[in-house]
């Protein structure tokens, strides 16, 4: 009788204080492992087709550098650089008229936001006098290297005279900003 009770108590002790906690620890570790595996799989899906992880990081960092200054908070810098860029390309600015900063809305009139910041745009009307080839370069620079994302809405070009070869261009574009 004493032996049976002792054996049972020993078994109970072993079960409660050694086996059960160890079993729980295994279950918790397995859950953590599953979670980590799921996260890895979701990221590896992003890497599908890429040659190496380093290459992906390099490409993404290049894109990040380019995109990080494409949506400034303030319009002043962009407005200052519009004529500066034009001057560098031998373009005469006849007039530069910024409009009112407006929030960008989606098709259902909802405010568009990224990184918890609302997206807005500043309409700009620009009148220029230049050669056509310089206008092409200017439009390319506005899209690529200009430190704000721009989108041309309308463009009107007329020849200034029959002999000068210069044109008069009226460009309406939006300068996009993050609040």
């Amino acid at each position, binding site marked *: 009788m004493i032996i049976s009770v002792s054996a049972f108590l020993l078994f109970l002790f072993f079960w409660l204080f050694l086996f059960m906690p160890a079993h729980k620890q295994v279950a918790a570790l397995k859950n953590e492992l599953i979670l980590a595996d799921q996260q890895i799989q979701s990221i590896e899906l992003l890497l599908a087709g890429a040659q190496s992880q380093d290459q992906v*990081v390099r490409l993404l960092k290049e*894109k*990040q550098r380019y995109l990080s200054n*494409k949506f400034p908070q303030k319009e002043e810098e962009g407005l200052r650089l519009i004529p500066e860029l034009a001057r560098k390309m031998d373009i005469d600015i006849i007039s530069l008229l910024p409009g009112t900063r407006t929030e*960008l809305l989606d098709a259902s009139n909802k405010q568009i936001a990224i990184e918890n910041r609302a997206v807005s745009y500043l309409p700009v009307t620009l009148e220029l006098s230049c050669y*056509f080839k310089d206008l*092409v370069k200017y439009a390319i620079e506005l899209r690529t290297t200009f430190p704000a994302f721009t989108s041309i*809405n309308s463009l009107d070009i*007329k020849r200034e005279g029959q002999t000068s070869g210069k044109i008069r261009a009226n460009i309406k574009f939006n300068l*996009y900003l993050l609040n």
Partner: protein
Amino acid sequence: MRKTFLRFAAIFIAAAFIFSQLLINSQISDCKKRLKTAQLYLQGLEEIKNLKYFVDTRENLINLIRRGKVPAEGLLKLISAIVPSSIILDEFSLDQSTHIMRLRGIVVLGGDSAAQALADFINALGNSKFIHEANLISSGEAQGKNTFEIECILAQ
């Protein structure tokens, strides 16, 4: 006999307990190793995940802004590349809201050559990925010049 049986039973149960404990310990150790490896790998990937999220968010915004618009600089580049020396453009207008581009100008050639130059120009416009359709709206002779107007419906 009974004592011997009990001894054997006790030894067997103790061995079973020890074996199961060893098994669980080895499982714990294995899980910890795998978890450590996975977490290290995940740390390396975390940077990619964050970068990708940043890039995707902004690229999606850019795509949203550009939706339904053609790149104006692309059109300007196209025009400067395909306008032949026999055509002089006087006016160019582009409206992204109506998806219309209009070109007015003169052809410095005369007769059939003028018509051919204009037809080739319209074809070149129509072959561009930015332009859905290019049509000659008017052409004629005014003050000794072959004038024309072309309207292009832009691709959306």
